[in-house]
C-alpha cells in the first residue's frame, strides 16, 4: 500500500492505495465519484477520460499511485460554481449531444481538453480529437455539433440528421 495525496476537483484527498489500483477504481470506489464511467476497461472507449495536471488521460490506464501530487479534474467538477451546466454541458443538452449518456462524461472531458488547446476547432479537428471516445449509440454527429456550438461557432449550417 502507498499513501497518495492529490487534488480532485479542487479538494485535497489523501488515501492508502494498492499499487495496482487504477484511477477509475480510486475515483469510483474510494471517492464515490461515479461520474467517471468504465466502458471497456481496455483503453479503447474514453468514457473514463479525466484530466491529470490538465492533460486528457484515460482513467482506466493510469494508476492512482502515479497521480500522487497531481491535480485531477473529473466530470463532477465541470459544472459552474452555482451548479448550472457549463458551456460544454449546456451545448450537449441543447444539441442533443447524448442519447444513452454513458459516453458523455468522457466526451465532455475530451471536449474541454480540446477547446483549451484549440478554442475554435474545425469539424475535422473535432472528429480527429474524438478518435479515442466511442459513442455506442453512434450519436457522433450531434456531439460534434455540440462541441462546435460550445466553442461559439455557428452550427446552423450543420443539418440535424
Amino acid at each position: 500500500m502507498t499513501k497518495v495525496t492529490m487534488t480532485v476537483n479542487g479538494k485535497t484527498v489523501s488515501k492508502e492505495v494498492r499499487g495496482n489500483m487504477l484511477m477509475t477504481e480510486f475515483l469510483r470506489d474510494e471517492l464515490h465519484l461515479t461520474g467517471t464511467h468504465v466502458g471497456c476497461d481496455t483503453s479503447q472507449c474514453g468514457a473514463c477520460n479525466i484530466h491529470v495536471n490538465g492533460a486528457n488521460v484515460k482513467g482506466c490506464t493510469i494508476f492512482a499511485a502515479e497521480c500522487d501530487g497531481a491535480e485531477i479534474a473529473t466530470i463532477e467538477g465541470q459544472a459552474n460554481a452555482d451548479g448550472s451546466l457549463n458551456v460544454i454541458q449546456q451545448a450537449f443538452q441543447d444539441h442533443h449531444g447524448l442519447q444513452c449518456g454513458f459516453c458523455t462524461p468522457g466526451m465532455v472531458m475530451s471536449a474541454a481538453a480540446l477547446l483549451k488547446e484549440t478554442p475554435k476547432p474545425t469539424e475535422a479537428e473535432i472528429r480527429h480529437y474524438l478518435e479515442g471516445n466511442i459513442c455506442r449509440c453512434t450519436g457522433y454527429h450531434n456531439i460534434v455539433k455540440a462541441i462546435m456550438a460550445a466553442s461559439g461557432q455557428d452550427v446552423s449550417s450543420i443539418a440535424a440528421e
Partner: protein
Amino acid sequence: MYSFEIVRPKSVADAVSALGEEEAQALGGGQTLIPSLKQRLAAPAVLVSLASIDEIKGVSSSGGAVTIGGGTPHGTVARDVAASYPALAALAGNIGDPAVRSRGTVGGSLANNDPAACYPAAALASGATIVTSNREIAADDFFEGLFTTALEDGEIITAVKFRIPEKAAYIKFEQPASRFALVGVFVAKFADGVRVAVTGASEDGVFRWTEAEAALSGDFSAAALDGLAVGADGLMTDLHGSAAYRAHLIGVLTKRAVTQAG
C-alpha cells in the same frame, strides 16, 4: 491484475537501482503495459514508474538533430518538434488518440518495439541514436525482432537523438480499431542518401527496405520505385490483412511517402 507495488524514483540513477530488484519492471506511460497487466501477461513485483524523472523529459534541437527525452509524451513531441522535424511531429500526433498521446512516451514505444508501432519506423529511417542509462545505441543495432531490442535488463532509454532529414514523410495505413499501423512507411532523405523504414509488416518488426533506398538515393521520386516490390515471405498475416496485401501496401505507401515528402 496481479498485485504489485509502484515506486516513483525522481532520477535515472534511482530508477536504475530500483530496476535492479527482483521482478522489477519499468513503467513508462503505461499505455501498452497497463492493458497487458490487466490481461495478466506480466507479473512484476514492483513497477518502477519513470514518469517523475524530469531529466528524461523535453525536446531540444541543435546541429541538425533533435533530441527527445525518453519520458516525453507523444503529444508533447507532436507540439515541440513541429518546427524542427515536421514529419516526426505528424507521426507523434497520429499515434493512438489524444489521451494515449498524453501518457505514452517515445522511450516506452521504442523499448517495447511493437511490430506495428510508429516510432520504430521514425527512429530507423532517421538513423537515430538511442541514448540509454549507460550507453548510446545506433537505431540500426537497436531493433532485434518482435518486441525485442538491444536493451539489457534494467537499462532505461533516457533520450533519442533524431538526425533531421532534408525531406521526410511518414504514411500509415491505420488499423481502424487500434490506430496501430497495418503498414507504415517512413521515408527520410539526407544529403548522404535516403532511408526507408517499414513498420507493421514484418514478422521481425521494423526493417529497412534497402532496394527502395538505393533507387531513391539516385532519384528521389515515386517513379523511381516502379518495378520494385517487397516479397511476401516473412511478412505478417492476420485477420486484418495477408502477407501479400501487406507487401502490396509497402510499395504503395512508400510511393505516397516520397510524394508527400516532396
